[in-house]
């Protein structure tokens, strides 16, 4: 296993009350595997991702990357945030060069690598654009190019397309598929969008606050490479329905329908 989580928990104190953000969670992600974490808001999926990223420390359990315990953040895990996190004072190309420099990637030709990757995500004409001149989808493409640039072992994505409109989101999913196949990436992808999880993943892990079936691991056996055509297949609808069934009862309970 590339990434292994063993009974990882996260508790914190909020207004003198103990809150369990994540109960004992155990699963693994294999090399080059695309795994989604699906669940409604508050199920702990983003918490889990931040623990793997090393941005917070788990209260219990261990996280292993290539057999070594994760004790803090590092460039071996690339994170794509929902908020893009581009530095507004740098152009698209400079944002990538910044990451190459700060990760000490040892890239001999940072400017060229930045240009190549921007070209790959379809932003070849926007290398010198500032983030504010780009649309949300374009910004997230820069962020993806930026994280690819320094070649992390694992890609962690926290609802990266959550702030985008539906049409752009579909295009971004296709782009991510292409990039994933090209770069042979290991991905842990957090989303609340069931179709997105089914379309992208090898496995979808449904997280729930329900104690009996807290984690449900669903293998997505759709053939690869995938294009949007797969959305029309019966198997896709079946898998979506299955995931929806797992999430829906709880979503309903949580929103008081």
């Amino acid at each position: 296993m590339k990434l292994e989580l063993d009974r990882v928990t996260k508790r914190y104190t909020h207004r003198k009350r103990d809150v369990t953000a994540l109960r004992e969670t155990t699963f693994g992600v294999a090399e080059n595997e695309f795994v989604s974490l699906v669940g409604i808001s508050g199920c702990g999926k983003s918490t889990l991702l931040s623990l793997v990223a090393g941005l917070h420390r788990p209260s219990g359990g261990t996280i292993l990357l290539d057999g070594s315990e994760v004790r803090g953040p590092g460039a071996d895990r690339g994170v794509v945030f929902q908020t893009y996190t581009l530095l507004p004072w740098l152009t698209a190309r400079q944002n990538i060069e910044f990451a190459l420099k700060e990760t000490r990637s040892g890239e001999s030709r940072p400017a060229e690598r930045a240009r190549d990757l921007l070209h790959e995500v379809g932003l070849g004409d926007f290398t010198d654009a500032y983030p504010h001149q780009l649309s949300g989808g374009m910004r997230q493409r820069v962020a993806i190019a930026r994280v690819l640039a320094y070649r992390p072992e694992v890609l962690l994505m926290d609802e990266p397309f959550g702030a985008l409109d539906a049409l752009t989101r579909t295009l971004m999913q296709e782009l991510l598929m292409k990039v994933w196949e090209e770069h042979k990436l290991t991905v842990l992808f957090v989303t609340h969008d069931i179709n997105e999880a089914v379309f992208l993943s090898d496995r979808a892990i449904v997280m729930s606050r329900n104690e009996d079936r807290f984690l449900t691991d669903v293998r997505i056996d759709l053939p690869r490479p995938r294009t949007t055509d797969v959305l029309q297949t019966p198997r896709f609808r079946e898998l979506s329905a299955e995931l929806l069934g797992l999430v829906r009862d709880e979503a309903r309970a949580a929103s008081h329908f």
Partner: protein
Amino acid sequence: MTRSKGRPLRPELLRIDGRAGRGVHLLLSALAFGAVLAAWALTTAVGSVPDIYLPSIGAVAGALRDAAADGTLAGDLGISLTRILVAFALAAVVAVPLGLLAGRIRLADALITPLAEFARYLPVVAFVPLTIIWAGTEESQKYLVIWIGTFFPLLLMVIDDVRRVGADLVDFGRTLGMTDGRILRRIVMRGALPGIVDSLRISLGWCWTWLVVGELVAATSGLGYRITIGQRYLETELIFAYILVLGVVGLLSDQALRLLHRTLFPYLRESGR
């Protein structure tokens, strides 16, 4: 006749979200200035107010001309500008690093912020006698008055600017494996810089007020000193002339920093506006 539906929008210049061209804006602003000057000219022309209270525009212009011609104005301006720049630089050089720390590090925040919040409400004017005891009538006394008046509010504004840099950018830096110190310098400081330059511009404006406070009491030179001379000899037109000079110089320094802001941070301007 067709009946209309909906509440008609008011004209652009009057409604709460209206836009106006630059030309219209400038014209109206010039009109406001003109109106004040006209009221002034009218009052003195009628002669209802003694010259000692309100000198004519011509007399003020004359006083300004005389001060400029014999070099007093340039001398006063030079001395006052030096005082402002020295004191302002001393305030900024301390406030920016302290603000950077207090805005991001809890320990520094706890030690610095409450103290600064208390200090900013201490009346600066009340410190003037103290500064004279401490520093006599030396230049350092003027620096001290300006520094006390500027440093604390500037520090608090810098703290705010630093806090406004998003936590997600800090997280991003962490995921690159950057150290906290490096994130502070390369991301937080840089991200807060536009706000800090703006805070510097605003606090430079206050400097002019504290300069005059310092120069009115224990000075033998400078713009504020010249105003006390005007008072002593009842040369009201000289006081008016120097107050106007202070206004103009303050406005120019403000515009200069605005220009610097626009030049340094082009990425803040929305495209297509």
